[in-house]
């Protein structure tokens, strides 16, 4: 399971650890949500390897190399590199485009962006699975950034 506090650099027994104690269920649920988006029992059209690669890619787009290195695993999927655009694979290209859009400027997303995914062959369930993966990562990266700032600001 993902150890959010370790990722945020909060040492066991540190003063902030004590402050976080009442929120332990939140961190446990966060780790379970991470497992649900990167390694679900029912991955649909998004393999575990692709999901790990996308998670690392999003961390890099947020400037968080430590999280990227942890999440990409031992043999990183090519999607983990934000410079990789899917090449000639139309499905991969559509997925990466959508991940980058929702990570960097979600405010610009429209109905047309969902239609791009449909046109590339993703079904409704895969579109929701992809949205949950990207959206969870947006949460995790902000949670980690905020906790690091709290630890450093003490």
């Amino acid at each position: 399971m993902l150890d959010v506090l370790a990722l945020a650099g909060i040492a066991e027994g540190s003063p902030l650890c004590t402050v976080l104690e009442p929120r332990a269920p939140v961190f446990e649920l966060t780790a379970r949500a991470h497992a649900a988006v990167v390694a679900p029992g029912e991955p649909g059209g998004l393999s575990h390897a692709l999901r790990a690669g996308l998670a690392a890619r999003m961390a890099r787009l947020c400037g968080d190399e430590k999280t990227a290195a942890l999440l990409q695993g031992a043999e990183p999927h090519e999607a983990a590199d934000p410079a990789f655009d899917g090449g000639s694979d139309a499905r991969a290209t559509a997925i990466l485009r959508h991940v980058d859009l929702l990570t960097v400027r979600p405010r610009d997303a429209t109905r047309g962006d969902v239609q791009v995914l449909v046109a590339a062959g993703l079904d409704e369930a895969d579109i929701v699975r992809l949205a949950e993966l990207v959206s969870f990562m947006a949460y995790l990266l902000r949670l980690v950034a905020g906790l690091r700032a709290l630890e450093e600001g003490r």
Partner: protein
Amino acid sequence: MSHVIEEFTAQVPVWRPYLRPVVLEEATPAQRDALKETPSNTKVSDYVLVLAHDPETLSVRTPLFNRIMYDRGGLSRAERELGAVGSSIVNRCIYCAAVHADRYNQLTRDESAMQAVFAAGADADLEPRARAILQFAAGLAQCPPEADTAPLRAAGLDDAEMVDLVLSTALFGWANRLMHTLGEPVAKDAP
């Protein structure tokens, strides 16, 4: 076709999905199970039925959401809603902004702060503590996220309160990306 709302408002719109929601009568056992605990224990909305396409995530997301927004201690309910609004403004999730501005108004019994936020965005001229919270939330919502805790400490927030603000703001980095990218807000009185 009812009209799409394009400006921030505290009047909660209707959310119209871009994808077909799961039909309750056709739901799989995993989907039914994930739908048992609904946000704020209200009736099952189209939004939740769209998310039911990924029941594994939904079944964790709902209790996580309720804990971050409603668990006791730490930051006040209203100030968690302010974090949610700050994120929703940056991500331009008009539906989320409306729901959580409305909750903030109900909790504080004051509509002036949200009127200022909808007029001026994250730079709205609020009282100092609310202003520090809103600006922190708007910074954390950016990509890459920005997190300067010094103005929060100066405004009097303690560590536990700041943890809850980070959580509620980060949570809306998640919620905004679902709500704003899987559907659109439309006027309530429309056919």
